[in-house]
């Protein structure tokens, strides 16, 4: 990275806008005894992504890495498509995107693409949509910080079934707020004691933290070594942990209904060591390296991360360090569509590049490559009509979501990995189940399929039926 005036604090400032191993902790312990050795990553493209623009390519090929350039559903565009149709006045004013060259063969050819998935029930809202992706439960969660799912999350199911530590189950979310509560349900048989690790990189990973804690109110930067850090001292960390454990041994544990999730000391020690690596990096590359290659180009030619890019970069760091069995990732750049249709198209390009980067990263790691199943799907779609916000010269404007029309509910699912059949584009119909009116595979089926890969399908079914909910089906057609 070239040190420049502009790039010094870009990630910290991005975080500001969003918010307003050391050996000291002992060796990394992988409690894998009861897992089946498989890993699952669910990538939720949050914010609402329509079939029209993604598979239909109605505005050009917005997701070439995943889907190539030829529409995969009918009714929107025909023939090979070019770059996304961004309005000229928008393109002239917006910073250019930094995107790697798309792969020559789209990813969907490596796996199975279900083009007619249905988000069949529940409000097409962010919290509800992602609540469904994390539990396989159509829900009507209230938009409140203390609103927990009544059924166990995939993190809780996995940890209770396997005895795995929290660091074996991660939720990496681009967005915070209410999403933080999705890390644990209020189900009495599960709950916070089986929660995973929630991490919101755009908020937590920001260079302003060491600047603030340094106490400096003016910075004189001559070289990169002048940037404030939080010093990492493994010996001091170990001693601190020992003394803290003496105190904690003599004090009552936190209330079981404390709204703040409390992980085990060992989990937190590992997480702290991971964070310490980042906050003690004087190059600030650990917050987001230029080599990631996805974001927007600033005036100096450097890449500023979008929130989705920063989220996926840190998801990869977690994968590399912890090799978790379960990970869910929430992307959200496309949600600008409420008032920025052109930004929505660009957000799809970023999401597409990020998912491709993530898959390439997984394939480059020998531990992850042969054990990881990745399922990518929109949390829901968007309305079939424009809302009139911020119209462009091509007659398009913002699009909302939430009313539940077919634009809101018709989505797709891409499954990749060693357990997944390759080279399929399918749209199964005639799917039957008591209570299922769609006749199609649904969002809850994607979650059931993922849990089936981990061997937790029966548990998920039991947990849902206990609450009177309809469990998803394993999508047999995608399985190898």
């Amino acid at each position, binding site marked *: 990275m070239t040190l420049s*005036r502009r790039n*010094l*604090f870009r990630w910290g*400032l991005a*975080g*500001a806008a*969003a*918010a*307003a191993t050391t050996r000291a902790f002992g060796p990394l312990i992988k409690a894998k005894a009861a897992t089946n050795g498989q890993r699952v990553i669910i990538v939720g493209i949050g914010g609402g992504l329509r079939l029209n623009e993604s598979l239909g390519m109605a505005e050009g090929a917005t997701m070439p890495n995943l889907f190539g350039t030829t529409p995969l559903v009918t009714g929107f565009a025909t023939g090979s498509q070019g770059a996304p149709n961004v309005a000229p006045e928008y393109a002239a004013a917006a910073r250019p995107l930094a995107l790697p060259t798309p792969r020559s063969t789209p990813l969907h050819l490596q796996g199975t693409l279900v083009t007619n998935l249905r988000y069949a029930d529940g409000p097409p809202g962010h919290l509800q949509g992602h609540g469904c992706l994390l539990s396989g439960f159509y829900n009507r969660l209230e938009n409140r910080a203390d609103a927990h799912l009544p059924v166990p999350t995939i993190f809780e199911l996995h940890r209770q079934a396997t005895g795995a530590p929290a660091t074996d189950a991660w*939720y990496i979310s681009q967005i*915070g707020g209410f999403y933080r509560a999705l890390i644990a349900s209020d189900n009495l048989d599960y709950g916070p004691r089986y929660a995973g*690790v*929630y*991490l919101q990189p*755009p*908020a*937590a*990973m920001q260079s*302003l*933290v060491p600047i*603030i*804690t*340094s*106490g*400096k*109110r*003016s*910075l004189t*930067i*001559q070289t990169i070594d002048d940037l404030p850090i*939080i*010093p990492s001292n493994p*010996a*001091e960390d170990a*001693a*601190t*942990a020992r*003394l*803290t454990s*003496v*105190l*904690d041994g*003599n*004090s009552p*544990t*936190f*209330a*079981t209904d*404390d709204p*703040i*999730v*409390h*992980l085990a000391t060992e*989990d*937190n020690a590992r*997480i*702290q060591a991971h*964070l*310490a690596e980042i*906050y003690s990096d004087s190059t600030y590359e650990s917050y987001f390296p230029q080599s990631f290659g996805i974001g927007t180009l600033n005036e100096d030619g450097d890449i500023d991360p979008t929130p989705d890019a920063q989220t996926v970069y840190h998801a990869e760091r977690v994968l590399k360090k912890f090799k978790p069995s379960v990970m869910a990732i929430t992307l959200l750049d496309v949600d600008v569509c409420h008032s920025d249709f052109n930004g929505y198209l660009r957000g799809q390009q970023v999401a597409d590049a990020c998912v491709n980067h993530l898959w390439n990263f997984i394939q480059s790691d020998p531990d992850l490559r042969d054990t990881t199943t990745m399922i990518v799907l929109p949390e829901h779609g968007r309305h079939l009509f424009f809302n009139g916000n911020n119209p462009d010269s091509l007659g398009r404007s913002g699009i909302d979501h939430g009313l539940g029309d077919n634009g809101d509910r018709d989505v797709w699912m891409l499954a990749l990995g060693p357990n997944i059949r390759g080279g399929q584009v399918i749209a199964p119909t005639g799917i039957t189940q008591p209570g299922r009116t769609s006749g199609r595979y649904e969002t809850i089926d994607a979650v059931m399929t993922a849990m089936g890969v981990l061997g937790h399908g029966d548990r998920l079914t039991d947990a849902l039926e206990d609450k009177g909910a309809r469990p998803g089906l394993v999508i047999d057609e995608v399985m190898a």
Partner: protein
Amino acid sequence: MKRLLLLLALAACTDTTYDYDPATAGEAEGGTRAPRAKTSTQFLRGLYADLLGRSPESYELTVSFQGSPAFAFQLDEEAQLSGALDGIGDSAPLRNLVVAGLVSSEEIQLPEKSEVEAAAFIRDQFRRLLGREPNAYELAVFTDEWASDPAVGPRTIIRALTGSREYQSQ
């Protein structure tokens, strides 16, 4: 009019007897209520008061780059740090790192280990941060560690106390 209504209400009560349960505000001395964790802002405000003797502030951070002024922007310590802490489900690891940063900062002048007497320093920090004296066991362990481990010094004592569940509880 209000006075009249009040008088009427009082009059209406004269032939009725009410029983009240004993007041139960607060916790009985020695009660066993399980603690709840401080929120991020509660933690930060307490930490800043305890370690820096002030509240979190908003100020202009100025940056000079290679000898010439580069830029300046407003920084709100509480908003920035609480935002970062809330970006993790259990923020204890990042809270610990925030403390590690503060005790190494220019704003805190901690004495060198050789400059202080262990037991006195430890007692002072217990009183300052936990509001109590260390019990005999705690004092013995802390002073033993101080004597036997070169990594245990003033910074470590403060980090251990602020990282404890007792300090992190409301």
